[in-house]
């Protein structure tokens, strides 16, 4: 027996694909058609955003490529008025809509992801401290979060952005629009993270391995970030997908209200907004096409979030 097992060749380490397929998440992904479709579409968006300069036939930021004579051309399948150059038509300034949408997706996704990173950083730190320290620190931080939550994100964003625009002028605002949007959306939504994490920390804190870590003589910061945080990652992952979708919607709404990205650097929201004036003059495509793109993006992100929540929740495990 022993000689046999000694002679046996060492098992080859499974490939990354094999390991993914054997894992719980991979197993569920392979069986779930909705998750696959959502993921594929989302991946499409990411590729569109990343490679926008390569895919787009025109550069919408380059005034030399824009001709006002091309404005409000319908999509190319409209044989009467369409132009083959612009397959989704052009907007009011004569920019190619397809190129503008590609760049707009890029801006929307960047703002969404960066704002969520900011939310997560603030929320995780505050949630960990509140949950781990407990007592007065916890009460103080959580009341602070409650106050923050009692202002709606949109209200805070509108006030801050409007004041900024009024006091520093539109020019500076246009330069800093993206940073401002990330900051405002990021700061307004941190309590979502802080609350979720605090709840998980309270549950994890009671487990014996935390006592064991304290007995080892580890400091509180090390215990919080290295021992508790990795054990709370699954709720963080789930709310992150939903929060990115929310942040994209917030950005689009603000842009629609004229407080988001400027028309010279349109995001999906400001595209929708800029086309809205022309919708009754028959130029529906400027609003509708970016609108559909935005809705599909938010929808697939929410679907992915739902799927991830089901997979990561052991109570809902269906075998």
């Amino acid at each position, binding site marked *: 027996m022993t000689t046999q097992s000694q002679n046996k060749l060492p098992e080859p380490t499974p490939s990354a694909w094999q390991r993914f397929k054997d894992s719980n998440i991979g197993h569920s992904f392979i069986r779930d058609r909705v998750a696959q479709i959502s993921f594929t579409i989302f991946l499409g968006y990411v590729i569109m955003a990343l490679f926008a300069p390569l895919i787009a036939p025109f550069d919408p930021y380059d005034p030399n490529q824009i001709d006002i004579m091309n404005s409000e051309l319908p999509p190319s399948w409209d044989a009467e008025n369409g132009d083959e150059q612009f397959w989704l038509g052009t907007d009011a300034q004569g920019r190619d809509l397809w190129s503008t949408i590609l760049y707009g997706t890029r801006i929307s996704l960047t703002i969404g992801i960066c704002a969520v990173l900011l939310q997560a950083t603030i929320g995780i730190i505050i949630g960990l401290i509140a949950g781990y320290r*407990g*007592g007065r620190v916890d009460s103080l931080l959580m009341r602070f979060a409650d106050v923050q939550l009692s202002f709606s994100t949109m209200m805070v964003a509108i006030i801050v952005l409007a004041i900024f625009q009024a006091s520093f002028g539109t020019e500076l605002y246009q330069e800093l629009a993206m940073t401002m949007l990330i900051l405002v959306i990021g700061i307004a939504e941190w309590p979502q993270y802080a609350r979720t994490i605090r709840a998980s920390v309270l549950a994890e804190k009671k*487990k*014996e*391995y935390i*006592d*064991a*870590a*304290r*007995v*080892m*003589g*580890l*400091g509180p910061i*090390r215990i919080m970030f*290295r*021992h508790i945080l*990795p*054990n709370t990652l699954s709720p963080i992952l789930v709310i992150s997908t939903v929060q990115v979708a929310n942040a994209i919607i917030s950005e689009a709404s603000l842009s629609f209200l004229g407080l988001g990205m400027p028309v010279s650097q349109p995001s999906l929201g400001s595209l929708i907004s800029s086309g809205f004036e022309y919708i009754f003059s028959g130029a529906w495509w400027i609003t509708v096409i970016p609108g559909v793109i935005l809705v599909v993006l938010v929808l697939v992100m929410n679907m992915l979030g739902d799927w991830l929540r089901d997979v990561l929740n052991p109570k809902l495990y269906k075998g």
Partner: protein
Amino acid sequence: MALLEVKNLEVSFGLRSGEVKALRNISFNLDRGERLGLVGESGAGKSVLGFSILNLISRPGRISAGEIWFDGQNLANLSAEGIRAIRGNRISMIFQDPMMTLNPVLTIGQQMVECLQAHRKISFDAAKTIAVQKLKQVYIPSPETRFDQYPHELSGGMRQRIVIAIALLLDPDIIIADEPTTALDVTIQAEIMELMVELCERNNVALILITHDLGVVSQATQKTIVMYAGRIIEQGPTKEIINDAQHPYTQGLMNALPQMAIPGQRLNQIRGAMPPLQRIPTGCAFNPRCDYAEEACKRELPTFTRSGNCQVACHMVAAMRKAEQTQEGV
């Protein structure tokens, strides 16, 4: 001088219903390399005593009086950094359930290296060498492989061995083991106990073994402390306590061992249950359950009487010893 000297330790918990004392007037010594058993029913305060030595009582509990002397320092009022330098380094602790005491998302190796690096300035490779060597000491087969595995990949007995290896990592002076074998099955229990005794002997480590299993105590320890309702009621060499228990409660515990029962009959038990800490009777806390209780037991708290090499807190034992002494005097 003793390695660890606990003097008049008192731990209280501030509850809404008022202050409850979980430990009262606890005093004992522990020498280098000595193995001490802490015995008592659930709720007697054994674990609280274990935790309070490391000053790990969490709110609303606190050490309200007394001193814990270790290496010239009073652990009861040491600063947070001071006590952290002792935890895991000079005094380490082993918990009941090895399924729960290892962090599920970190590998065995990460947890061991982390513990070493928390107390010593040491490179990862040097830490790994020490960790693997300790894993060998607890007879983990192929320790290099285990080093990179996660806790869920190992069996319960294996995990408890790893917990012991972590406890030994920094060559501590004292290991506090809080029911280290309760969560394991019986065959593994004996193995783990033997291993702990062997390692403590080899490395000259003192052991405080918290358990309610008198069998384990009699095998593994030299000294025993019996606790009841937050007080020590009997302490002395394990052999004397096991063979000739003086306190009626200790006698009851001994008789309650399944080995003491006659086959086919009910197991012996101590009647009644331990009172909750809020309602400890006056006098001797054990008096409502004691077969020998008299008027004095209900009024006065018994003090320690010497009996052989043991200290016993019981009016009856005190009276008997007094009678013996007067007889000898006559």
